[in-house]
């Protein structure tokens, strides 16, 4: 049955994941095409100087891409479950309801993480071609909270979509809207270094948040 659930989730997610991954990779391509172009036209030392001392963030076009990914995957995976309350079918299967929900979010989060790791890994690889470790690591420190924002948006998005009462759905949205900007503050490269571990812990904790709205759904909150 576990395989069946995974397959069902895959059916829901596959095209969204593929399209999102292609979109994210195109964005990555644009970033490094622009870097290459600017280095050719402005000289590499001037470009490095701009990154090191003038606050130029060549990776800035990636800022909202992980966030968009988290929302897309949450909607693609959980919106169909709310249409005619289809998720109730899942709850009727001979498996613990919480385990079922955690399997679903675990699978969605893993898929999202795979795309994130692909994008992040490729970013590091391409950045290392043009820049020394100091520039690439500062960029990685700036990118990490954006990817954490994507994961937080996924978990909170799933929670909001599965919530059965519209009023609470709206209130959860307000709470999420207040929390997600924690990851997206503007700042110099590397400014998030002291905050990465606390934010990562909060996101990891949020991974079980879907259980709450799943419980309310099961209990028939209206």
């Amino acid at each position, binding site marked *: 049955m576990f395989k069946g659930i995974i397959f069902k989730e895959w059916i829901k997610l596959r095209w969204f994941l593929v399209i999102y991954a292609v979109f994210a990779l195109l964005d990555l391509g644009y970033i490094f095409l622009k870097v290459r172009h600017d280095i050719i036209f402005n000289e590499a030392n001037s470009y490095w100087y701009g990154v090191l001392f003038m606050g130029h963030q060549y990776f800035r076009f990636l800022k909202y891409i992980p966030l968009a990914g988290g929302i897309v995957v949450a909607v693609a995976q959980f919106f169909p479950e709310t249409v005619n309350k289809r998720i109730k079918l899942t709850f009727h299967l001979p498996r613990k309801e919480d385990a079922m929900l955690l399997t679903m979010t675990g699978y969605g989060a893993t898929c999202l993480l795979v795309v994130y790791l692909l994008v992040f890994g490729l970013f590091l690889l391409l950045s290392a071609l043009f820049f020394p470790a*100091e520039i690439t690591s500062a960029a990685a420190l700036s990118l990490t909270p954006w990817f954490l924002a994507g994961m937080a948006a996924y978990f909170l998005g799933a929670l909001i979509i599965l919530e059965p009462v519209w009023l609470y759905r709206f209130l959860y949205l307000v*709470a999420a809207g207040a929390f997600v900007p*924690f990851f997206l503050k503007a700042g110099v*490269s590397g400014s998030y*270094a002291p905050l990465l571990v606390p934010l990562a812990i909060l996101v990891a904790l*949020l991974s*079980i948040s879907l259980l709450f709205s799943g419980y*309310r759904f099961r209990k028939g909150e209206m």
Partner: protein
Amino acid sequence: MIRISRYILVLVTTLALSAVVPQMWWMAFDTPIRKPIVLYSCVENDFLIQRTGDKIVREDTRGNTYTREEYEERLPLFFMRQLMISGTMKDTINGVAMDVHEINMNRTFFNYQPTDLNTPDPGLWPLFESESGRANLEMPEDFFRITWRLEFINAKGNQISEEKSRKFSAALYNRGFEFPALMVAGIPTTRKSCDEGYFILDSHHQLFHLKMIKGEPYVKKAELPGEIRFSHIACVDFKDKKFYAYLFDNKGDIYILTQDEYELVKLPVGNFHPEKEELRIYGDIFHYNVIIGGNGFVRDVVLDKEYRKITEFNETWPVRSETNIGRWFAGLFPFQLSLSDDNSNYHNFYFSFSKGFIWLIVSVLLVIVQIVLIRKRGKLMGHVVDLALILATGIFGFIAVNIFQNKFFK
């Protein structure tokens, strides 16, 4: 597990609200705290204070008030251009003839913000050619880093320049430099009058001066008196070329490092905390005006040209938490969270807790309201954690526990 998931959501929401609600509060009610501008008049030998607000007031410490023109005439070296345009610039001040060239040569402006210290290190710096023979400085092709040696990385091709790296590493090593470096300080821009390279603290807190002269390394070790631990070095590019840098140590002292002699001179300006206080130093042909400003105070110390203290001015004013709006805030909210701090370029969880415990009254009221709200939902024991959270976090926790309602005991 479901209950834990709820507590996680409540925790996250409490955190989010403790950042957003105070932000909204201050946006709606905050009033600007107008800091006085304090300068020392070489004409009056007194401090002149400009206070902004509904009406700009310019006064001295004896209570005399001045018009804008009178104020500028009493600060002739600060407003020289304006006075020359107005034709009111004096020919002599304190018996010294006012020569424009001499005034400009002695005029220095230095501005330090705590964010200069609390900021990520770039890790790479350009080492300029100090004696290229060209009129303007040119950006080098490579940048250096200091790890177990000094390495130059050529930007074109992102490759290490091995020969140059070896030459400069050896020069540092032969002068007693202990790798790696604790701090690299310089002025990494071509927009300066000349290049004086970098001041580098090695892993043993020794201070070295590194320059590149005609492609060759110039390394000089500055002999420091006693055990000094520098927390920040701010290099300067002044026309009078009297010193290389202002240096701050971890005991709150400010030093200068004299040009060519590498003599460390302590400025008698009292304690300075570079992690949270601003520093401005204005120099002219008579004085150095050292202005230290922090949260709710300013201290202006005047030094003569031999760095001896002449006089000092201190003023304090209520900080934001001591204003009426601040007191209201402290009465309503137990704390606030911010991800940014004016004194730092780093993002972090910056909590600031309200003074006093008046907010507890609001928290207790909210606990009572919550008890009324939940009385039909089951036993009170099932809500103890929620009530404790409201007591500790006030309105933030109250909103959070009511967004994610505790309905497990229905």
